[in-house]
C-alpha cells in the first residue's frame, strides 16, 4: 500500500436513521490502517433524512463524511445501494473500501465489487500491512483454520471485517467535514421491492435472563439423543438451548436457538455440548461469565473461548456429568 495514495473509504450502515454499531468497527479499522499507511480516511452514508447519523460520524477522527441523501435510498435495496456506491467511488477514487461484514454488506458488497471487476475480501478477522500488500486474515472451514489472503487486482480493494474484530468504542474522536454528495438513481433501475421489516412473534422462551444454560449442537447426532442433554440440564437446573442446525432440524424449537439469528445470552454458565463454535454461534453466547465446552475435537474453535474444556466423547461425558450433578443436589 503506497503511502498517501488513494485514501480509505469506510461504509457506514444506517438502518431507520440509526448507525449500525458494527460500522464503528469498520471506522476504527479505517483509522488504524489509515495511520499505518498514511492515508486519509473518509466515510460514506446512504439514505434519506440521515443528517443526525452523519453528524454522529463526523464527531470522529476522519477527513470527510460523504452524506448521500436520496429518496431512492430511503429503504435499503441491493440495486439502489450498488448504483449509489459506484458513483461515490467514481467521485472519491479511494484505494481501499472498508466495510463491516453485516447481513446488509453480505447482500450488496460482492455485487458492488464485481460490478467494478473486483472481488470482496470478506469477513476478515485481522490485517497486516506488508510493503505494498495488505495481508488479511480470514476464517476458513468455519473457524477451524485461518488463511492469510492478499487482494491482488487493481485498486480499489474491497475488504469487510467480521463483527468483533475491532472495538468500535475505541474510535478516536475528532471533527470531520460533512460533504453532501449527490448521485443519480433512476427508481426504475431498482428491481427489489422491499416490504416492512418485522420480527416473528415474540419468543415463547426467554433465555436472556437464564443464569445457567446447557446448549446442544450437531455432535448429538440424532434427535432422540437430545434427551441425554435435557437430563443434564434438568440435573443442573439449567435451561436447554441449541445451535442452529438443531433448530433447523426441528429437534428443538427455534426459540431455543443461540447465535446471530437466535437469542443472545450472557448467563453465569454456558455449557456447550457438541458445538463447534462457528462465529454465528459465538456472537450469541461469548458474553457468558463461564464457558464450558465438551467436544471430541481438541481443535474445535469453541475451545478458543472456553474457560473449561473437556476433550472427549459427549456420549460418555454427559451421562457422567448428569450422574454427578444428581448426586450433588
Amino acid at each position, binding site marked *: 500500500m503506497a503511502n498517501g495514495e488513494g485514501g480509505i473509504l469506510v461504509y457506514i450502515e444506517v438502518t431507520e436513521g440509526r448507525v449500525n454499531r458494527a460500522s464503528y468497527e469498520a471506522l476504527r479499522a479505517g483509522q488504524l490502517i489509515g495511520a499505518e499507511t498514511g492515508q486519509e480516511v473518509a466515510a460514506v452514508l446512504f439514505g434519506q433524512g440521515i443528517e443526525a447519523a452523519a453528524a454522529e460520524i463526523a464527531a470522529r477522527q476522519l477527513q470527510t463524511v460523504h452524506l448521500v441523501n436520496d429518496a431512492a435510498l430511503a429503504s435499503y435495496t441491493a440495486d439502489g445501494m450498488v448504483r449509489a456506491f459506484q458513483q461515490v467511488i467514481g467521485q472519491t477514487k479511494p484505494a481501499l473500501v472498508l466495510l463491516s461484514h453485516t447481513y*446488509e454488506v*453480505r*447482500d450488496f458488497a*460482492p455485487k458492488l465489487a*464485481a460490478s467494478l471487476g473486483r*472481488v470482496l475480501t470478506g469477513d476478515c478477522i485481522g490485517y497486516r500491512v506488508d510493503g505494498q500488500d495488505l495481508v488479511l486474515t480470514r*476464517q476458513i472451514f468455519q473457524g477451524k483454520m485461518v488463511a*492469510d489472503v492478499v487482494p491482488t487486482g487493481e485498486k480499489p480493494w474491497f475488504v469487510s471485517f467480521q463483527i468483533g474484530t475491532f472495538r468500535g468504542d475505541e474510535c478516536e474522536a475528532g471533527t470531520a467535514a460533512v460533504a453532501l454528495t449527490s448521485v443519480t438513481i433512476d427508481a426504475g433501475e431498482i428491481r427489489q421491492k422491499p416490504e416492512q421489516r418485522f420480527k416473528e412473534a415474540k419468543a415463547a422462551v426467554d433465555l436472556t435472563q437464564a443464569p445457567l444454560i446447557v446448549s446442544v449442537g450437531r455432535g448429538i447426532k440424532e434427535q432422540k439423543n437430545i434427551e441425554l442433554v435435557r437430563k443434564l440440564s434438568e440435573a443442573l437446573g439449567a435451561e436447554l438451548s441449541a445451535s442452529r442446525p438443531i433448530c433447523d432440524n426441528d429437534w428443538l424449537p427455534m426459540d431455543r436457538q443461540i447465535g446471530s439469528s437466535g437469542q443472545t445470552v450472557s448467563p453465569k454458565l454456558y455449557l456447550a455440548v457438541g458445538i463447534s463454535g462457528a462465529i454465528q454461534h459465538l456472537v450469541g453466547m461469548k458474553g457468558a461469565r463461564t464457558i464450558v465446552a465438551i467436544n471430541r475435537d481438541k481443535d474445535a474453535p469453541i475451545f478458543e473461548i472456553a*474457560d*473449561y474444556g473437556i476433550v472427549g466423547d459427549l456420549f460418555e461425558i454427559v451421562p457422567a456429568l448428569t450422574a454427578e450433578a444428581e448426586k450433588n443436589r
Partner: protein
Amino acid sequence: MKIIVCLKQVPKNDSVLRVNDEGTWIQDRDLSYEINESDQYALEAALQLKEKVGGEVLALSLGPARVQTVIKEALARGADRGVHLDDEAFKGLDAYGVATVIAAAAKKEEAALVLTGLQSDDHGYAQTGVIIAEQLGVAHATIVMDVEVQEARLRVKRELESGYFQWVSLPLPAVLTIQSGINTLRYATLKGIMAAKKKEISHYDAATLGLAADQLAPRQKILRIYVPQKSKQTQFIEGTPAEVAARLLEKLKNEARVF
C-alpha cells in the same frame, strides 16, 4: 420454470484437516466429501418450487471429476439433469472466477432462476450467488428463508440482523442465496437412485462456455493457511468420564462459583 441449483462439494464436516506441502490449502487425499450444507437446502427449495409451478431442476457443480458424486446425489433426490463444469482453468478460482463460470453456464442454459447456498463451509466466501447475479445482469436476494412465485416475479422472505425479517419482491430471472433450515430435506429413495442412472449430465469446459483466461484471473491470493493461535487459556480437564465430571462440577462450584 427452469431452475439451476449450484451445489458445492466440500470436505465432510468432521474431517481431519491437514495443511498441504505448499501451505496454501488442505491436503485432499484421504478426504471424504459431502454437499455443502446450505446448498442442500437450496436443492430442496428448487425441488419444491418445481413441484409447485412445474419446470425443470438442473443440478450444477463446478470441480474435478469427483464432484459428479454431488450431481448424482441431487439427481437421485429428484433433479432432472446434471451440469458439470470442469476445466484445468477452473482450478483454484476465487469467488469472482467461480461465479463467472457459473453465470456463463446459466446463460447458456437460459435458466429463469439460479439458487445457491448462502455460503460454503470451506472457503466461506458467501459471495458466489451475488456475483452470479451481477454477471447475469439479474436481480438477487440473499439469506432467503421462504420463496413465493408470483407470475413473473418472486416474493422472498429475507433473514436480517437482530431477529428481523423482510419480504422483498424481485423480477425473474433472478438469483437467490438460500439459508440453511428453510425446509425439510428429502433423501434419495432407492427408486430415485435407480431413476438417476438414466438422467443426463452435461459437461461444459471453458471453451464451450466461451470463457477466456483473463476473465477468470484471480483477484485475491491465499498466501498460507494455518490453525489459529489460541488467545484464551482454557483449563482442560482430563481423566475418566466420572473423574472429569466430578472435577468439572467442583471447579464450577468453588472456582467459577456458578452454583
